[in-house]
């Protein structure tokens, strides 16, 4: 039983790390500001939520079976759920705000054939 749960946790963690690495490479390699935010805004959100979901599953099947655990340990899944909801709400909002600010101050999008910035 615990073996299947561990495999699922490792798959979730690996998928999250894959998405985060893809977002970081996109941030480093894409030609201009808008494409860079396009890479990181979605990849980071999904990757972080996957990693925290994997840790939540790990917590449910490892720590909740310990008898007489402290209240701070019992409250950890609530905090992780708060983190998931907050990242899903806040990360796209922050990306949108910074991109709108750049657009309103006149940052030009990159076109094919121009030099990479």
């Amino acid at each position, binding site marked *: 039983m615990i073996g299947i749960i561990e495999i699922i946790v490792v798959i979730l963690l690996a998928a999250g790390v894959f998405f985060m690495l893809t977002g970081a490479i996109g941030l480093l390699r894409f030609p201009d500001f808008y494409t*860079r*935010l396009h890479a990181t805004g979605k990849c980071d959100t999904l990757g972080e939520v996957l990693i925290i979901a994997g840790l939540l599953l790990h917590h449910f099947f490892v720590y909740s079976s310990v008898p007489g655990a402290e209240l701070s340990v019992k409250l*950890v899944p609530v905090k992780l759920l708060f*983190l998931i909801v907050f990242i899903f709400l806040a990360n796209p909002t922050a990306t949108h*705000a*910074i991109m709108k600010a*750049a657009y309103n*101050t006149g940052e030009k999008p990159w076109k094919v054939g121009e030099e990479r910035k």
Partner: protein
Amino acid sequence: MIKIFLAVGLLIALTILLALCRTVLGPGVFNRVAAINVIGTKTIVLLVIIGYIFERPLFFDISLLYALLNFIGTLAFAKYLERGEVWSG
């Protein structure tokens, strides 16, 4: 399981290093602010993983606080760069 968490933490640190390259290189202030926002959101996950490696529940509170502060900081930076002031009126 601890070793897997350690490997995940090291890979997240690697992605933070890549984003730090963009912070140093990036032309203009918007690239830098965006890269700093990315570093902050990755640090949230790194703090959660550190909490599981050392088995201390305190780190989850720190990561919640870090998420809130990072979001507010990015919004304030965006408003400041757009209008020249944070509070209008």
